[in-house]
């Protein structure tokens, strides 16, 4: 199996894209730590689902925006599992992709920006700083950061969200430079509009159809699509690939 004997942490791993990635990695043999923020029942359900399929998983609560909570989570992983090879930075501050009611540039407050930066750059900083000492012990490790194709084609200008995800894109590259020498590969995935997820439920059919029309593959992205690319990036199939961002959006953006 591709991820035999590997331990993976998926932040925001209990729902949406995160849940798909958790399942995919577990099916490939990894022990998956499903990190969640609030919904314990949901996270436990996913763990049970993974176990029913013959996989192994563990749900751990932590707000990735909270440095102490993240450190406690990593400590728990170290104590219970001893190792950590894969980190998927997927969690972000809840965001409503609602083209009808999005905030205009003039209406945004610094709080809006801050909450997106907290959910992206700050979360990344917390998880990486706590996780690096463990990752650096491995012969090789993989980090995958979830960003968005909106960074390159902000078809709907969700300014605050784009600011947060642009920060991820920048950090993705600079982290790859510093961590390459440790055998840690750092890559990003930029999904297009991923449907269905809770965040995308407010993107109504008209906008969805407009996106589909411009997309070479003539369809939206599914959580399963993103999980496939994540599996590639966390496995040895992507050996010597680092600092890259793969767009999983049916060719809407060609980078």
């Amino acid at each position: 199996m591709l991820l035999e004997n590997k331990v993976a942490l998926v932040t925001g791993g209990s729902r949406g894209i995160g849940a798909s990635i958790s399942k995919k990695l577990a099916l490939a043999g990894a022990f998956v730590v499903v990190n969640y923020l609030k919904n314990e029942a949901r996270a436990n359900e996913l763990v049970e689902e993974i176990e029913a399929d013959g996989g192994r998983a563990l749900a751990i609560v932590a707000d990735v925006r909270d440095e102490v909570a993240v450190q406690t989570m990593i400590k728990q992983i170290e104590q219970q599992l001893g190792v950590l090879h894969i980190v998927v930075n997927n969690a972000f501050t809840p965001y409503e992709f609602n083209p009808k009611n999005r905030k205009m540039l003039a209406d945004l407050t610094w709080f809006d920006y801050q909450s997106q930066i907290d959910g992206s750059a700050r979360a990344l900083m917390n998880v990486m700083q706590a996780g690096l000492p463990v990752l650096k012990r491995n012969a090789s490790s993989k980090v995958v950061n979830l960003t968005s194709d909106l960074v390159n084609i902000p078809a709907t200008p969700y300014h605050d969200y784009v600011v947060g995800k642009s920060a991820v894109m920048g950090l993705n590259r600079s982290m790859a430079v510093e961590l390459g020498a440790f055998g840690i590969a750092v890559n990003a995935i930029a999904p297009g509009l991923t449907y269905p997820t809770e965040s995308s439920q407010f993107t109504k059919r008209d906008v969805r159809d407009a996106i589909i029309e411009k997309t070479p593959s003539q369809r939206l992205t599914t959580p399963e699509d993103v999980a496939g690319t994540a599996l590639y990036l966390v496995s040895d199939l992507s050996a010597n690939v680092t600092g890259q961002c793969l767009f999983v959006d049916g060719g809407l953006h060609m980078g």
Partner: protein
Amino acid sequence: MNKTVTTIPVYHLPSVITGLEFEELTIENAHGSVKMVSPVLSTDLISKLVVSVKEKQRAYLKKQTTAQIIDVIGEAAEKWTDPNYHLRQLALKTLPIVTGYDASMIELELKRFIRLFRKKNLRRFVQSEIGLFGNVLDDFQPNASGGFSKFYGPDLIFQVFSGNVPGIQLWTLVTALLVKSPTIGKLTFAEAIMPSLFVSSLAEVDQELADSIALVPWRSEEGKALEEVAIEKADAIIVYGGEKTVNSIHEKVGPNKRVLTYGYKIGFAAIGKEALTTDRYPKLLDGLAADIALYDQQSCLAPQSVFIEEGGAVSPLEFTSMLKNALANFQSKHPRARLSENELMSIESARQKAEIEAFTGAETTVFKIEKNLDYTVVYHGRVGFEPSPLNRFINVFAVSSLDEILNVLTPYAQYLQSAGLAVAPKRLFRLADELGAVGVNRIAAIGEMNHVPSGWHHDGGFNLLDLVRVTDIEASAEYASESFDSDVE
């Protein structure tokens, strides 16, 4: 598999020795096939070789000036700097098959190594050790106590070579020539190629000079009688090899002959916190990985342990983590040689020992690839010292100050040789002095541990001076002789 078999002579005989029988030894592996040809040996033949090389020394070698000898060696070395030189091509084709070392690594290192024998470097070598550009080996020269002195090399040197690093034998072959001594050399089948081919190059330049050297390979366990003859006839013996080989020769030789030994040595690297700045550490890392990976630590010059001082921009543990990655990269660039079962087992057991240490709660971390012995990096969170099973196995020790390392080195004093140092100028000399006092005899930059300059002091000894004896014409004899001048008044 490459089906062509390359035939190569792994000996050098004086040209007067003819009518011999030869035997063949074929080495075949994934890299190709080599048929090594060498003469069938007997004690009689060894005696004949002794007579022949000694005769050539008397009739020719001793009449050459040091400068002339340097010219010949330098010209032979220059041949090797040409990529199209037939013997270089033959060496590069056969050495990877016989030694198992990566072909591109051998090419790079050999190219670099052979340049040490250029005329200018040989002149520096002689000048640095005995001065007067070696004239004191040619004729009596005025000495500091008012008389005259001349140096003489041994009448016959028996050299017992090892095969750990290709070409390493050239050092003492050249040294013997420079002191105008003939050589009988026992080669090992593990690497008999470079010395044989280099003496062939000497013969291309000056047949008579090359005739003062005889090199033949035999297996130590089968050649006790041959060895006895060679030891008996020689007045100096040079031995390369492990402790066992060196001790056994010492026992056989007895106290009355000069024995120079190049045995088991331990090198280490020490990195000061001032060298671990964010802009400097990547280069240091590459250098250290090269020091560990070149010739798989088989050269006595390579580091077996690394000390890293805390307090730099990257912690000792982080540096170790990157070292693991650098060694993994080296493996893809220059793979480690194929190892024997014994070698693999000693890596396994050293790994197990480290893993037990890690498991029992010591601050030890083992960096490795499961079921893969390409490299092993063991991090120890405290000061200590561990010889390595070699073949890209390195122990790293975190220290709060490099001053801590002196105590742990002391028990290994007799084995210490090279130290790779990365410290600022203000501590270089102090630390060098302290390391010198515990037995270290060579301090190199990290990244250069496997590369010695011409004129280095091998294992802390002299190369030429340790071989020669001196005859003095004392001032009294010189003045007295004046009185016997028939024309004196």
